[in-house]
């Protein structure tokens, strides 16, 4: 029970590592920095593992296990609902999943980074940020109330800003960092208001105290709260319409993209929605909105992914669309599936990014797939791992992604909140996903090399990069097999494990189980394997193979024939431009012409300068009294004496 009662240790270790590296790293050798950074995260992982082990020994009554360390904020003690915020951590099934994912993937990516960043400046700075991110992410997932959670929420935002802008000398990187920060702020505003509304409504911000009383709250209020919270999720998890920062975030180092912008941070929104599921499940409208946003995002960003040539950009859009799936799951009430997909996605998407990073590493920084090709033989480990990840994300049966995505789509199709349109969008998205992913693979690893082989000498990455790849590949295959028994009519262990967390919301499992009851295992297996997602997955594979292996000329032809559409997709629907036109420029204009030139220069500076001018003017007038003539001073002194005496004797009446 030690680590359950001292959950803070799990958080503190990365923070300690960050502090050490941040304060003294400059003078450390690289190996020492590695030791500190990786060591702290590894220890944190071990601690988390131990905590989970202890967690499994708890009786259901003790779950969620909350541990409060100290009262952080206390206000209005006198009032009925004092604003009281403890620094409290909690652990339940959901937290367990997040803990393991975050710490484990985080550790792997740390190890990977030691190889990937080996030749970069600011080595210690990078790991300082990365550890700090770990700290905040863990705070986010273990926080026992919205405020602590919000601390982690904003903290990861900060770290993402710092890491996107890691090459801050590169303007695009710095701008991307700013963009990420500002865009997410928009969402966070909603989130903050949501938190305040939660307090206003429930009189507390602690999860354990909120959920019991949701029943007594009217639906409109809950809907409002949920929508506000979801705004935050939209910003953080890059959903429509606030997804624009994520593709740009690829300016950051690839491990960062893998850890923050694929595996962990961007899924925080999903985690939050899942965490607040008692509220959502009582606000159908909100859930619908979540589902719609998720589904549209899933499809929409997949379409953009089709034509991108930058390997990381493709992955970025795919991330956006996968996140869309997660929200779709939440929207249709399949929170467990959403979290399931979150986990598997963490595995295979992290793997994809790392592999892509390995490719880029091998190509000496080249990111454009049009200048790659035929790398299959040169970097086999990268190739195979990436292939596995692709199969996983494409939803090919047997791979992790299959189980999670299938569960989501099934829930959308036949779940209690089933919705045909959402399901259709999801399936279409799946098709596109599989297509652009295999397009990526084929363009990168197959065909004739499209780069100057004399200039670029391709080489496989070092061990400390390939080992994480292999491990993640393993997970990308078997990470989803918790749900495997379901195929033959068994139960989804993952779902059952998470069931207590989502007990309040409609149990998705029942229908699935119910349907499974009727069928024999073989039937259910067939039913599962010929399901739409599998079909579209394979279809996408074939189409991609046809386009990019069999007839590589077709894509160009299509691009010319459907030029407008192609351009549209290539320019990501001109969303950035539209935002620029609709929001940024007007904002700039107002800021410049109104706030700056009128308000600031006119009013504020006017007041300030006016004061100064007045002071100077009056001073230059009064200064004439300061004639430097001693006797004039004397005269003034006497005047004072006379006045004082008059006051004393006359007015104050001392005389009488």
């Amino acid at each position, binding site marked *: 029970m030690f680590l359950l009662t001292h959950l803070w240790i799990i958080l503190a270790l990365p923070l300690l590592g960050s502090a050490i590296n941040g304060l003294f790293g400059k003078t450390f050798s690289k190996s020492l920095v590695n030791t500190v950074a990786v060591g702290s995260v590894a220890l944190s992982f071990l601690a988390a593992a131990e905590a989970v082990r202890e967690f499994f020994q708890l009786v259901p009554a003790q779950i969620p296990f909350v541990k409060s360390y100290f009262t952080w904020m206390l206000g209005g003690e006198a009032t009925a609902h004092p604003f009281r915020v403890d620094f409290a951590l909690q652990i339940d099934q959901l937290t367990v999943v997040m803990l393991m994912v975050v710490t484990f993937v985080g550790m792997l990516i740390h190890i990977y980074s030691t190889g990937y960043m080996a030749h970069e400046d600011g080595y210690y700075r990078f790991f300082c940020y990365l550890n700090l991110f770990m700290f905040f992410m863990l705070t986010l997932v273990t926080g026992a109330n919205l405020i602590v959670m919000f601390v982690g929420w904003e903290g990861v935002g900060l770290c993402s800003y710092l890491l996107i802008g890691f090459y801050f000398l590169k303007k695009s990187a710095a701008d991307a960092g700013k963009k990420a920060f500002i865009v997410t702020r928009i969402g966070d505003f909603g989130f903050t208001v949501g938190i305040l509304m939660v307090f206003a409504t429930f009189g507390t911000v602690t999860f354990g105290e909120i959920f019991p009383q949701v029943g007594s709250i009217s639906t409109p209020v809950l809907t409002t709260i949920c929508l506000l919270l979801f705004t935050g999720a939209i910003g953080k998890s890059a959903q429509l319409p606030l997804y624009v920062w994520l593709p740009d975030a690829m300016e950051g180092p690839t491990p960062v993209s893998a850890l923050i912008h694929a595996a962990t941070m961007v899924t925080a929104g999903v985690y939050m929605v899942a965490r607040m599921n008692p509220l959502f499940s009582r606000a159908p409208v909100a859930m619908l909105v979540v589902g719609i946003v998720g589904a549209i995002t899933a499809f929409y960003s997949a379409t953009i992914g089709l034509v991108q040539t930058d390997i990381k950009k493709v992955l970025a859009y795919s991330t956006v669309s996968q996140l869309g799936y997660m929200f779709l799951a939440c929207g249709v009430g399949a929170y467990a599936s959403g979290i399931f997909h979150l986990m598997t996605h963490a595995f295979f998407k992290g793997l994809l990014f790392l592999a892509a990073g390995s490719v880029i590493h091998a190509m000496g920084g080249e990111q454009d797939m049009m200048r790659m090709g035929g790398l299959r033989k040169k970097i086999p480990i990268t190739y195979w791992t990436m292939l596995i990840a692709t199969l996983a994300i494409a939803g090919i049966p047997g791979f992790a992604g299959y189980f999670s995505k299938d569960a989501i789509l099934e829930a959308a199709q036949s779940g209690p909140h089933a919705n045909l349109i959402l399901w259709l969008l999801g399936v279409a998205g799946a098709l596109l996903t599989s297509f652009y992913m295999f397009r990526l693979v084929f363009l990168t690893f197959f065909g004739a090399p499209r780069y100057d082989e004399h200039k670029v000498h391709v080489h496989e990455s070092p061990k400390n990069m390939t080992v994480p790849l292999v491990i993640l590949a393993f997970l990308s295959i078997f990470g989803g097999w918790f749900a495997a028994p379901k195929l033959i009519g068994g139960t989804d262990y993952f779902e059952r494990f998470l069931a207590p967390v989502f007990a309040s919301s409609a149990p998705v499992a029942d229908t699935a189980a119910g349907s499974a009851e009727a069928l024999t295992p073989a039937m259910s297996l067939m039913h599962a394997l010929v399901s739409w997602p599998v079909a579209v997955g394979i279809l996408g594979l074939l189409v991609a193979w046809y386009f990019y292996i069999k007839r590589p000329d077709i894509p160009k032809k299509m691009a010319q024939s459907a030029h407008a559409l192609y351009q549209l997709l290539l320019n990501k629907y001109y969303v950035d431009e539209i935002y620029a036109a609709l929001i940024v420029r007007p904002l700039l204009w107002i800021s410049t012409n109104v706030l700056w030139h009128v308000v600031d220069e006119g009013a504020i500076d006017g007041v300030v300068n006016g004061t100064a001018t007045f002071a100077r003017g009056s001073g230059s007038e009064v*200064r004439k009294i*300061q*004639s430097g*003539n*001693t*006797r004039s001073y*004397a005269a003034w002194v*006497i005047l004072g004496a006379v006045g004082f005496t008059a006051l004393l004797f006359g007015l104050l009446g001392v005389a009488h």
Partner: protein
Amino acid sequence: MTAIPISWYLVLSAVLFGLGVVAFVFKRHIITIFMSIELMLNAVNLAFVAFARARGALDGLVFVFFVIVVAAAEAAVGLAIVIMLAQNRQSMNVERENLLKL
């Protein structure tokens, strides 16, 4: 011994003080101005002693004592300053000590 009304002393002290003020304003020689300050102090002392006598208490005399001490200190520093002044700027006329003037 016939008693002298205390107010006589007070009037005298007031007159002396006034004359000290006048001297302070009229005189130009820096040392003389200094002296007029001393004159005012003396006038105040007289008032102190007179009041002490009127109240039959000694506190007034103690204050006179302190005033004298302060005057001594003041004279020491002040005259040192005057010497500096005379050495640096050849005039002892306050009207010429106008570096502060704009």
